[in-house]
């Protein structure tokens, strides 16, 4: 197989055996980018020169006989909402089209310490608001499995790049499903970690109480390796959990005998494509065959998750996005009469329609007279949703569900109807409200398009998630191979 389709752990083995060099890996990936990027459009910015220089540094370390980390010399694509010192960080928005951060996000610092090689910054829905990358101010990314379809979003560029061989691994961010849903649509693995387990320092904020950074990879082992590298306490993020993280590869044993898995019936009902339900039922058989105990359960407040999510996420967004005023960075409207005129015109020209809609909706939810009916009510519903999960986890180690109601949809199919687009996140966003971890794992196909299964864990239960995900992957029963697309 071509180098650009291997996994990080396969490439690491080849590097330490000196069968290949890091520079060769980087050249193979950039060769692939040259060949397919016109059709996929995963990247907003490419960083080939610094990537090649970083790769040569890794080769020097190997030649000097130094022990290298599992991610050394491994190409990684970064969603364009994480600050990269000296490299443009746009959030796929006109308002940040020229923003060059003066510092690195903590995750970038950690990847640099691991000597991984950044390929570039990937496309997304503007400020991570969307489920298809169609809200990018620049262009829409295409799904490598069918280029007429969306890759999912908001981390669509990262998921498409991993699936198309335009990187080996990637980082995405997930506020309501933005790692897991594109991973499902593109047939790759995506982990939304427990809130607080990965530092948000340097992640451009959308909804601060929901946002988490996580890995998008081709297999579960790579997912554990990237998560090892980026997780852990960071004093620069006051919501970072002060816990020691274990070595997550130690959970990749393949043994899940006796593991208790619940399947919430609310996630298998109306609104979910029957073909997707069938895929999930098949995965249940696989888990049972591996020795897990699987049974139906209930999360009774599920139908309230979507409305609660949209109130809380937009309320937080309306506050977080107040900083884009044309004063300190980014786009500025130049002909303003006075400062308020400058604010208004800068923001009106700088933000896209969906971002404006969410800012206004959030402003509405927080305004006097509506605060109790909307915002406070949503916070109370959040308590109920978290309570549903707490109760389920008294009985089960993990929950199993679809990731999205269907496979990747066609470009233009949902963009005119915001509510229909929001429904795409129906199986993922309550996990963010509860702050718990969940993975999207290739589970099968519907009409030759990949469909993910979601494993949901207890707070800081990433170990159990990875254990079960790895056992499923290794069983090969429904293993969703890369399509090795000819684009």
């Amino acid at each position: 197989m071509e180098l650009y389709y291997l996994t990080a752990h396969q490439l690491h083995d080849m590097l330490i055996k000196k069968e290949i060099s890091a520079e060769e890996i980087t050249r193979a990936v950039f060769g692939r980018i040259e060949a397919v990027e016109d059709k996929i459009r995963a990247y907003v910015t490419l960083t080939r020169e610094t990537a090649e220089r970083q790769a040569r540094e890794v080769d020097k370390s190997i030649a000097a006989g130094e022990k290298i980390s599992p991610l050394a010399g491994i190409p990684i694509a970064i969603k364009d909402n994480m600050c990269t010192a000296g490299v443009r960080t746009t959030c796929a928005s006109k308002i940040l089209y020229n923003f060059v951060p003066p510092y690195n996000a903590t995750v970038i610092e950690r990847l640099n310490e691991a000597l991984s090689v950044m390929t570039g910054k990937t496309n997304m829905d503007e400020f991570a608001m969307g489920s298809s990358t169609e809200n990018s101010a620049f262009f829409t990314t295409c799904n490598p499995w069918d280029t007429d379809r969306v890759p999912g979003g908001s981390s669509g560029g990262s998921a498409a790049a991993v699936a198309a061989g335009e990187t080996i691994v990637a980082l995405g961010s997930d506020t309501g499903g933005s790692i897991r849903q594109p991973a499902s649509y593109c047939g790759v693995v995506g982990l939304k970690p427990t809130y607080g387990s990965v530092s948000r320092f340097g992640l451009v904020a959308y909804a601060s109480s929901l946002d988490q950074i996580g890995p998008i990879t081709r297999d579960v082992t790579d997912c554990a390796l990237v998560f090892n590298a980026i997780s852990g306490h960071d004093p620069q993020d006051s919501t970072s959990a002060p816990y020691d993280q274990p070595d997550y590869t130690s959970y990749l044993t393949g043994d899940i005998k006796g593991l208790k898995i619940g399947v919430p019936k609310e996630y298998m009902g109306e609104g979910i494509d029957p073909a997707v339900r069938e895929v999930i039922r098949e995965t249940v058989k696989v888990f049972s065959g591996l020795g897990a105990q699987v049974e139906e359960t209930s999360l009774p407040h599920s139908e309230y998750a979507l409305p609660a999510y949209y109130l809380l996420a937009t309320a937080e967004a309306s506050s977080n996005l107040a900083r884009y005023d044309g004063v300190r960075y980014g786009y500025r409207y130049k002909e303003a009469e006075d400062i308020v005129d400058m604010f208004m015109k800068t923001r009106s020209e700088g933000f896209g329609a969906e971002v404006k809609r969410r800012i206004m909706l959030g402003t509405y939810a927080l305004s006097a007279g509506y605060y109790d009916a909307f915002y406070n009510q949503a916070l109370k519903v959040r308590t109920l949703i978290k309570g549903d999960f707490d109760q389920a986890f008294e009985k089960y180690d993990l929950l199993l569900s679809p990731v999205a109601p269907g496979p990747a949809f066609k470009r233009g199919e949902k963009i005119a109807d915001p509510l229909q687009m929001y429904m795409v996140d129906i199986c993922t966003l309550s996990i963010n409200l509860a702050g718990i971890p969940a993975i999207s794992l290739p589970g099968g196909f519907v009409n030759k398009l990949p469909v993910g299964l979601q494993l949901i864990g207890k707070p800081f239960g990433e170990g159990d998630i990875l254990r079960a995900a790895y056992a499923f992957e290794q069983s090969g029963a429904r293993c969703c191979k890369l399509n090795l697309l000819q684009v």
Partner: protein
Amino acid sequence: MKITEQAVEQLALLSRLDLTAEDQTAHTKSINVILDYLDLLNKLDTSNVEPAAHVLPLKNVFREDRLQPSLAKELALANAPEEEAGAFKVPRIF
């Protein structure tokens, strides 16, 4: 109809957004569709439920009161649309 065009105009002003008449009409329509759906929340009796602003049991996260290096002025100003004498320059305020 929960929200009128005039109310959306006011929301836009609060949000520091300058909408065209056409945008205002479109946003009023879509915000109303969304608000109708969000109303589902008010079917639920939550009188005995505490609100959850946050999911982690963290409070009062302090650090030691020690002097640390911060961003250099030139770097902080490097992205400024306009600067003068080491400060961000903006249009007149009145």
